[in-house]
């Protein structure tokens, strides 16, 4: 459906290097990455809104690399929704039809259908300035879909919304995508959005693709240090593998399996590392003594750095545990984690 072949973009602030990607028809595809990674630039390159330095863009088999945006059959929806402030909701929605040959019945049909699907009936004669975030978003979706694009590009559509409504709107997005039969490509930096919406995804960092694949695969089997960190595996170490053990700087970690390479990385999620004052008598195969190096507030939780020899393990602990265990800088503690919670790559 959409193919990017060795795409390169050079702007003053952002750049993309040799991006190749393939999204199939009717797919919900997600582009993930940290702020400034070039996610939005990639969307705009597909839309023809930024000049492409090198490479090709194919939409439905047609080479659109040098077509102006209005001839590509795509729609884009920005994070701030970018509704036209001088038009009513209805005029915003109908805007795209001025530029497409659609007969009158068709127009009415599409309009009726979208207004119904997105529940916009009561808003039609209001101006964007008077709408709430969720309403703005629904109007922007209707405006983008009324021209029947082959691809809808979504730039962080959920991040401007009240978290309380996100769940609801995620569902709406999925339903909409399924019903409309349009390919959705969405940019997000929020992992949970990706998990609940997409089948496939790619992680982009510093203008290049780090990993592409099934969403669960990326989460559970990151293939690079950056992706491991991005999906929350804060404890990531370069190791030598020896039998079923991984060795970092004098510490032998039991991984419970043999690995096909002699060196590589292991990663453990901080929430899988348990801190205790005495060595835990449990099924956990890896138990080490260490010293608290720092404790940082992470909202509801504290993140404790435990120094074992020269290696730092990050563990998450609750506020109450902080009091109960008397965890402070310099205190001696034990950490433990299961062999099965170790990821190898």
């Amino acid at each position, binding site marked *: 459906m959409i193919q990017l072949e060795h795409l390169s973009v050079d702007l003053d602030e952002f750049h993309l290097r040799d991006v190749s990607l393939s999204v199939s028809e009717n797919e919900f595809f997600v582009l993930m990455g940290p702020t400034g990674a070039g996610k939005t630039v990639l969307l705009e390159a597909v839309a023809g809104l930024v000049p492409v330095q090198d490479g090709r863009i194919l939409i439905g088999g047609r080479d659109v690399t040098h077509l102006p945006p*209005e001839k590509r059959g795509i729609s884009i929806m920005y994070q701030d929704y970018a509704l036209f402030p001088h038009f009513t909701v209805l005029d915003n929605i109908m805007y795209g039809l001025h530029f497409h040959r659609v007969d009158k019945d068709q127009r009415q049909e599409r309009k009726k259908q979208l207004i119904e699907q997105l529940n916009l009936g009561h808003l039609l004669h209001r101006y964007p300035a008077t709408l709430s975030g969720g309403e703005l978003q629904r109007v922007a979706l209707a405006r983008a879909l009324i021209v029947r694009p082959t691809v809808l590009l979504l730039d962080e559509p959920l991040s401007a919304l009240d978290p309380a409504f996100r769940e609801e709107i995620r569902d709406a997005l999925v339903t909409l995508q399924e019903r409309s039969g349009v390919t959705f490509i969405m940019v997000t930096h929020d992992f949970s959005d990706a998990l609940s919406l997409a089948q496939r995804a790619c992680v982009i960092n510093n203008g290049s693709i780090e990993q592409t694949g099934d969403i669960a695969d990326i989460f559970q089997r990151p293939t690079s240090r950056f992706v491991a960190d991005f999906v929350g595996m804060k404890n990531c170490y370069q190791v030598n593998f020896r039998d079923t053990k991984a060795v970092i700087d004098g510490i032998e970690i039991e991984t419970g399996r043999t690995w096909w390479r002699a060196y590589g990385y292991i990663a453990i999620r901080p929430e899988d590392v348990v801190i205790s004052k005495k060595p835990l008598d449990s099924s956990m195969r890896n138990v080490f003594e260490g010293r608290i190096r720092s404790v940082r507030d992470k909202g509801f939780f504290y993140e404790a750095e435990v120094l074992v020899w020269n290696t730092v393990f990050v563990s998450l602990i609750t506020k109450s545990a902080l009091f109960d265990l008397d965890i402070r800088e310099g205190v001696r503690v034990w950490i433990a984690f299961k062999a099965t919670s170790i990821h190898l790559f």
Partner: protein
Amino acid sequence: MNTRELFFWVMLASAAVIMAFILLPMIQLLTAPSLPMLQKTIRDPDVLRSLWLSIYTSGCAALISFTLGTPLAYLLARTRFRGKGLIESVIDLPIVIPHPVVGIAILSVAGRNHWIGQILSALGIRIMGSVTGIVTVLTFVGLPFYINAAKEGFESVPVRLEKVSRSLGASMLSTFFRITFPLAGRSVLVGAIMCLARAVSEFGAVVIVAYHPMIAPVMIYERFEAFGLKYSQPVAFWLVFLCLVLFFVLRMLTLYRKKGG
């Protein structure tokens, strides 16, 4: 701010002096002529003709600035390129050129020794002593004000709105007329009025290019030279009145813009 500070009183005093310095002459000018005198002046066909010519030529200058300046303002608002600063400097140039020199410069290219003058002469267009000449000079001095205001207006329209419009199928031109221009409308209007106000108040450049036909500032000058202060004041009153109306409209527009967002 603490009112017990000496510095505070220094500031207040300077404010009072400046207000007095600006307002007293204006008030005196506006109150000196008697009402019958003002009525008589505004019925004088010469005065009416010169006021009308002032409005007409300034309006033409604003219209030309609008037509020619809008595309350039949009170009400057939406692109970055080497030498942009230089172009912006050239646009600001007319602001700092002494007023009679503007007239001299325009005449310099409109004369028979210059190819432009030759072309104009072949086309039967006269600059010296003509309405065309006045409009040319007023456009020269007013243009920068229009372009700068319009540029700012276009800059304030989010590029994303244009991008969305393009993605929905609108061409660059459609996008400009349907989205960008309507949203920058107020700034464009402000620019046009600033251009108009600047043109109405010009004297030095016009007096070089065309003493006759007589625009209002030239008539004020002539009456002052020929009959003295007292006879120039009523004409000045009516011209200032015109300027203040423009100024008031301008303030309302910019004030409303700040509030309305």
